[in-house]
C-alpha cells in the first residue's frame, strides 16, 4: 500500500486538566485521555475503533476534527496539517469532514426545526443561492435518509432516537463531505433501528464513495461495517489490524477478552473462551510505569508492570499490537 492516506493521525495526545469549582475553576489534576495514538485511514475504507467506555474514542474523533486542541501530535488531511491551521481555512476544510455524534438526543439543537438543522451547513458555507434551492437540498437529504420531508417543520424532540440519528446523518451529508466520523452512531438504539442505520450508512458510502471512521461498543457491528479495526484501551491503541485478522486472530489479551465476552444471540452458543474474562474494575487510575492493562490482564507478567509495551507488528498483514506477550 503506497497510496497516500486520506487522513493521517500522527502520535496525538490529549490531556484534560480537570477543573473544579463553580465560579473560580481550579486545575486539580490531568487526565490522559489519549496518549500517542497514530493511525492512517485510506480513501473509501471504513476504519473501526473499539474500546472500553471512557478509553478516549470520542476524544480521538474530536481531535481529528480539531474540535479540541491537541496536547501534542498532528492530524493530516489529504496531506495538509490541520493542527495550527488558520480558523478561516479550517472552516473551509470542515466542509469536507463531518461528524455524527454518539448521542442523538444531545447533538441536535432542541430549539431548531429539523429543516434548519439539516440545512445549517448550507447556510454556514453559503452553498445555496436562494430559499427554494435550499429547500430542495434539504428535502433531497431527508429523502435520502428516508425521512418524510413533510415533517421538516418539526423539532427534534418529536422524533424517535432512530429518526434523530438519521437527521444527524442527513446534516452531515448535506455538504457532500469526503470523510465522515461516526462516533457510536448506533449504541443507544435497539437492534432493528441499529440495522436500519447501518444499512443506510453503507448505502451512502457506496453511493458517494465516502470514508468512515466508525466507533462502536458492539464488536459485531464493527465487524459488519469496518475494513480495518483498532482497539483502544485507556487512551492508547493496543491492537490494530484488518477485520479478518483481528477477529480471527486476536493477539492482545484485551482484544481477546472483548471477543470472549461478546454476547451471542443464540442460547445454544457458549462463550469462546471463559478464561479470557476479565476481573477488576475499569477506569481506576493506575500509576505505574508499565502497561495500563496490567491490573486486569489475565496473562500479566512482572515485566508488564515495569515496562510499557509499544505498538509493533506481529505479523505480515500490518497487524500491530502493544503487548509483551508477543515478545519472548
Amino acid at each position, binding site marked *: 500500500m503506497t497510496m497516500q492516506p486520506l487522513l493521517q493521525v500522527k502520535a496525538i495526545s490529549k490531556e484534560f486538566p480537570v477543573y*473544579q*469549582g*463553580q*465560579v*473560580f475553576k*481550579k486545575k*486539580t*489534576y490531568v487526565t490522559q485521555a489519549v496518549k500517542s495514538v497514530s493511525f492512517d485511514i485510506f480513501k473509501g475504507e471504513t476504519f473501526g475503533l473499539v474500546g472500553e467506555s471512557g478509553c478516549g474514542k470520542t476524544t480521538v474523533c474530536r481531535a481529528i476534527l480539531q474540535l479540541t486542541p491537541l496536547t501534542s501530535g498532528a492530524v493530516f488531511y489529504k496531506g495538509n496539517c490541520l493542527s495550527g491551521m488558520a480558523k478561516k481555512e479550517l472552516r473551509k476544510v470542515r466542509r469536507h469532514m463531518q461528524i455524527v455524534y454518539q448521542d442523538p438526543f444531545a447533538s441536535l439543537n432542541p430549539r431548531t426545526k429539523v429543516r434548519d438543522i439539516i440545512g445549517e451547513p448550507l447556510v454556514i458555507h453559503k452553498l445555496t443561492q436562494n430559499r427554494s434551492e435550499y429547500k430542495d437540498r434539504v428535502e433531497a437529504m431527508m429523502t435520502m435518509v428516508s425521512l418524510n420531508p413533510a415533517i421538516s417543520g418539526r423539532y427534534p424532540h418529536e422524533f424517535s432516537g432512530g429518526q434523530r440519528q438519521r437527521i444527524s446523518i442527513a446534516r452531515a451529508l448535506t455538504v457532500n463531505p469526503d470523510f465522515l466520523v461516526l462516533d457510536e452512531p448506533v449504541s443507544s438504539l435497539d437492534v432493528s433501528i441499529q440495522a436500519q442505520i447501518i444499512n443506510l450508512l453503507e448505502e451512502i458510502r457506496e453511493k458517494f464513495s465516502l470514508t468512515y471512521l466508525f466507533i462502536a461498543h458492539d464488536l459485531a457491528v464493527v465487524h459488519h461495517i469496518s475494513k480495518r479495526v483498532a482497539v483502544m484501551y485507556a487512551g492508547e491503541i493496543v491492537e490494530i489490524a484488518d477485520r479478518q485478522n483481528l477477529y480471527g486472530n486476536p493477539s492482545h489479551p484485551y482484544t481477546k477478552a472483548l471477543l470472549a465476552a461478546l454476547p451471542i444471540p443464540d442460547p445454544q452458543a457458549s462463550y469462546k473462551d471463559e478464561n479470557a474474562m476479565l476481573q477488576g474494575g475499569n477506569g481506576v487510575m493506575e500509576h505505574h510505569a508499565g502497561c495500563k492493562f496490567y491490573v486486569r490482564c489475565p496473562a500479566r507478567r512482572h515485566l508488564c508492570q515495569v515496562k510499557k509495551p509499544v505498538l509493533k507488528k506481529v505479523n505480515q498483514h500490518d497487524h500491530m499490537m502493544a503487548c509483551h506477550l508477543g515478545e519472548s
Partner: protein
Amino acid sequence: MKRYILKRLLYSLLTLWLTSMLIFAIARILPGDPVQGVVMASHMGAVDNNVIEGIRAQFGLNQPLTVQYLIWVKNFISGDWGVSIASGEKVFDMFMKRLPITFELFVCSVLWSMLIGFPCGIISAVKHGDFIDRLLSAGAVLGLSLPVFWEGIILIYLFSVMLHILPPSGFVPFSDSIKGNLLSIAMPTFIMGTQGAGLIARYVRSSLLEVLGQDFIRTAYAKGYSEIEVLLRHALKPALLPVATVAGLTWGYVTAGSFIVEYMFAIPGLGRMGVNAIFSNDFPVIQATLIIVAINILAVNLLVDLQYGYLDPRIRVQS
C-alpha cells in the same frame, strides 16, 4: 484548598478594587456642593461665603480626583474614613455606632426570610401543581412585589395604631431591653425578610423541582424511603446548592430594602445613614457606606462560593 481560597480571595480583592473606583466615581460626580447643601438644609440662616469655603477646604475638595482617590484608599485602609460633612462626626465612629443595629436587622431578616422561604419553597415543590403550590407561589411573588414602604405603613397602622402590639417606629438597643429590642425590629425584619423569603421560596421551589425530577430520587424511593425521608435525606442537600447563591442574592436584596425600611421605621442604621448621605451629598459617608455594603456582599458571595464545596462534592477541591 488553601491555594483555592487564596485565589478566590484575590479575585474578590480585585473586584473590590473595581468597585471602589466605581464608588468613588459615583460619590464624586453627584452634583451639588455638599457643604452648601447642609447649610441650606439646616435652616441656619445667614452663613457667609468664607464659612462655606473654610468647610470645603477641610475636606480637600480642591485636589485632583486621582489624588483624592489615592488618599481616600490609603486612609480608608488605615481606618481613617474621613469626617462626615453633614455632621462633622468621624465616619468610622458613625459606622461603629450603626453597624450593630443594621447587622442585627440583617441577620434577623435573613433568618426570617429563610424561616419562611424554605418551608414555603419546599412545600410548594412537593405539592407541585396543586392548589397549595399555586397559593404559595403567588404568596412568594407577592412577597417580592409589595412595595416596601407601602407594606410598611399598612403594617404600622395595623399593628401599632389599631392593635397596639408593636411600636410604630424607633429602635431599642438590645442592651436596653431585650423585649423592647425584639419588638422594635419586628416589623422592619418582617418587611425586609418577606422580600428575601419570596426570592428564596421561588428558588427553593424550582431547584427542588429540578432535583426531585432526577433519577437518584427514584433510587431513594426504590429503597423504601417515604416522601418526607426522601426529601430530607436525598433532595434537600443537592437542592441547596443553587439556593446558596440566592441566599447571597437575598443579602443584596435585604441591603437594598434596609435603605427604605430604616428610613421608614426610624432605625438609626447604616441604610438610613446612606440615604441621608446621598441626599446631602455627604461623600465621605456615601463612599464608606457603599464600600462597606460592597464588601459585605462580596464577602457573602465569597462564603457562598466557598461552601459550595461542602454542599457538592463534585466541586469540592481536592488537595
